């Protein structure tokens, strides 16, 4: 069964359409579904084999599951683990109904030669490419090899025919912890080595599950990436600072701060700014989407934000428990502090807006250059439009 089903059908077309292309009539198709019903012993079920066959036929006719290759390069697997926690697109629905996850080393059945063959076949078809992990450039790439080849070569081959490239997590974005000083392995991000097309960055160490799956489903729904900021990050997730939506924000504005973990102020749920919280400088959806199906997020649970969606946070946001510099004037009375902080916060917000506007301009410039919104995706069966596009340009 795997032999006949696995070859030929590209995932860019409905299963029914594929069969039609192969000269299979509707009658043959229904008969096939009936045979499947027998094969599965469905006749003994409530509703009997006929209902089962009809159900299978309906599901198969509409099947359009784009092929996805999900590479894991130099990394810790935390980003795939995060994806598995998605509540908005549960992973079983994702891999069984929404995409055909043709290559992912954490989940796939085969190893070795068989895995390499699957990858080779998938690379030759239109596909979406998701990447976890960085690319180590030192020592000719020996710091991360897969199937005896360097992460760089593996990535380049998989990217060649990819309809879109999505870098998932801080390692794939810029190298994350292994790129922190002294970066022994020369780790860089995907967009540092795939330079001929836009790369979408889903920031975070790891990113929240739903930001990964929603970026993917956005592609599937609209055929182009969601609008991005200057670092290639989707605005729906990275358009605002955590600080802007933080449940402890009122305490910040009122000058109510925890001065030590678990002190009286911490127990009252007051602001963690003085304990080193990086929320005021971090663009991320932690306070809105929250983690693990909206359960909570670090600041809500009492720990300062580490700023893990910002580039090079292991060097730029550390020491983690030191205050963000230049953000307020400390050492005044409560009333004065509240006022001062109110002003400082406004100033910071204005600064944030200014920075953010600049980022948007850069994003627009990039977008214009690459026109990601208008690039039709072969993986969604949009090959004709793509050809037209290519002719025009």
């Amino acid at each position, binding site marked *: 069964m*795997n032999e006949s089903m696995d070859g030929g059908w590209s995932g860019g077309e409905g299963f029914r359409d594929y069969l039609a292309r192969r000269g299979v009539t509707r009658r043959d198709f229904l008969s096939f579904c009936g045979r499947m019903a027998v094969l599965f012993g469905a006749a003994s079920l409530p509703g009997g084999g006929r209902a089962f066959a009809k159900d299978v036929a309906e599901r198969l006719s509409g099947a359009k599951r784009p092929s996805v290759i999900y590479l894991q390069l130099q990394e810790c697997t935390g980003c795939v683990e995060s994806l598995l926690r998605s509540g908005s697109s549960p992973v079983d629905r994702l*891999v069984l109904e929404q995409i055909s996850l043709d290559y992912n080393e954490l989940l796939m059945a*085969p190893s070795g030669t068989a*895995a390499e063959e699957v990858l080779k076949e998938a690379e030759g078809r239109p596909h979406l490419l998701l990447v976890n992990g960085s690319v180590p450039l030192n020592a000719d790439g020996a710091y991360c090899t897969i199937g005896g080849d360097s992460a760089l070569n593996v990535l380049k081959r998989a990217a060649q025919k990819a309809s879109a490239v999505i870098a998932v997590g801080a390692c794939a974005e810029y190298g994350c912890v*292994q790129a922190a000083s002294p970066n*022994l392995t020369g780790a860089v991000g995907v967009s540092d080595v795939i330079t001929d097309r836009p790369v979408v960055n889903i920031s975070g160490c790891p990113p929240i599950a739903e930001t990964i799956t929603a970026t993917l489903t956005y592609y599937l729904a609209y055929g182009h990436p969601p609008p991005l900021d200057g670092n290639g990050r989707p605005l729906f997730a990275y358009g605002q600072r955590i600080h802007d939506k933080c449940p402890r924000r009122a305490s910040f504005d009122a000058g109510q701060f925890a001065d030590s973990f678990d002190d009286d102020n911490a127990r009252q749920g007051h602001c963690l700014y003085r304990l080193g919280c990086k929320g005021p400088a971090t663009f991320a959806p932690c306070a809105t989407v929250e983690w693990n199906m909206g359960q909570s997020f670090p600041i809500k649970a009492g720990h300062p934000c*580490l700023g893990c969606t910002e580039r090079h946070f292991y060097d730029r946001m550390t*020491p983690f428990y030191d205050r963000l510099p230049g953000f307020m004037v400390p050492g005044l009375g409560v009333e004065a502090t509240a006022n001062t902080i109110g002003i400082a916060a406004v100033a910071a917000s204005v600064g944030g807006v200014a920075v953010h506007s600049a980022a948007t301009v850069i994003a627009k410039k990039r977008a214009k250059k690459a026109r990601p919104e208008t690039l039709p995706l072969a993986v969604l069966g949009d090959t004709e439009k793509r050809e037209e596009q290519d002719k025009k340009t």
Partner: protein
Amino acid sequence: MASERIVIDPITRIEGHLRIELEADNGRIGDAWACATQFRGIERVLQGRDPRDAWAFAQRICGVCTGVHAIASIRAVEDAIKCKIPPCAELIRNLVSGMATLQDHVMHFYHLHALDWVDVMSALKADPAATSRLAASVSPWPNNSATWYAEVQKRVAASAAGGLGIFSGGYWGHPAYRLPPEANLMALAHYLEALSWQRDIIRLHTIFAGKNPHPNYLVGGMACSINLNNQITVNQVRLDEMAGMIDQAKRFVLEVYYPDVLAIASFYPDYAAIGASSPNLMATGESAWSCSGAPAGGVFPAALLMDGNYGTAHPFDPKKLAEFVSSAWYSQPEGDRQGLHPWQGQTEPHYTGPKPPFKELSDRPKYTWCKAPRYDGRAVQVGPNARIMVAVAQGHAETVQLAKEGLGKLRAGIEALNSTLGRTYCRALESVILARRMDQWFAQLNERIKSGDTATFNKERWEPSTWPKQAQGMGFMEAARGTLSHWIEIENGRIVRYQAVVPSTWNSSGRDPGGQRGPYEEALAGGGKHPLLDAKRPLEVLRTIHSFDPCISCAVHVLVPGGGGVEVKVR
């Protein structure tokens, strides 16, 4: 070696990048080499940083066993700066670690290991009504109706018709698959159920530690304040939610995971005699659940079984650890024959293998990024089977009773726990014990809260001005995959040396200077009898390698060079 070697790369359904090279003849494995093919250098990154930040760096060694490196790290720091944490913080850490281990074990079995035993395509031929009867005969789990199994079957069949996706290229129909279609369907249904179970139960991390993967920890305690009269702190709403999660976790372990492992094992009894590895097993025991510094005391103390004598537990002595680099791509001033204690190493990455792309690694003396830790000169297995066997040797009543029951059902003796099936079975067995322990820890936490003791943080040693100018510390942890230890040296408030000795390093290590194989290699090549029917579809090898639950990002690490003038002393 002139003969061409069989190469399996990538080994999938593991964490990290692992390559296995083999020699095989007449369907039997003659020799084996385990090659870790990724290096990141995180311990080196830690040099010069604030020790209170170390957990957040060390944690990123691995996102699957997320949390264990953070715990070991903060314990090492707390040991160095002499910080005691409040009882509530200890209980919260145990609950967080316990839930992580339960989640890790269940996901390992269903999502990383099951496809070695379960033929997904055969499941599509099962009779749902017969599957329902089979399921009801092994467990009271309520999702066992014919309608439910038919739905799962239909769903996977419809999906397979639209592309096999993660099941593409699987070894379906391989003669080494032995389950009847109904058992395959039952396991496949539980594969899918475990996917939703894991994301529900792990929310205990989110409440106590903000997120998962990579929850937040804190030197001196935990950052989550407990206040029953506040909206944002740990209050009754959160406690109620977590009681539900602990219950849900326990029920799945008792009614799905454990019975499934026993049911599937009964079709593969020969694997209780396949994959025997190094006859030395180490566990730091229950004491490692609540300690900083060297593990001591507890219901069953840290110990080793040595040289195949599974009845005698030898006390654990941290001075007897040494790591070798004779098969790994590192250089050290002492030369390759010298093993170094974690306090002593000055190791540098030094790649001497072929330039990628390459065909073979094991034709040279150095073939992996994984160093070779040894205890008193011996290669040592760590992990669930080591923990269970050490506990049995020490007469831990609960463990003895469960192991007796399980081994009775499998008609095997204690030595069978050192096997492919034994490692997989022990993971399920200790999940049962751990699920019960979760109830106890949670009850203790609630008792503390009731008594008015809600402190989660000790601030006495937070400021670096309160620390000694120079300090050394070690932190132990029984992680899902085995004994983990972190070793730190602090000088003037900064890290000058950091080292992690990791479970998968013990297990996936290569040869030491004496030519002794590491445990993965020994499990495949030790008796010369490990089966391998078809080199292109190495299902049997995957069974044995997966039985260790490899975590290769964890396994590979490097010592920070230079002691910065700190006197090296072994305690």
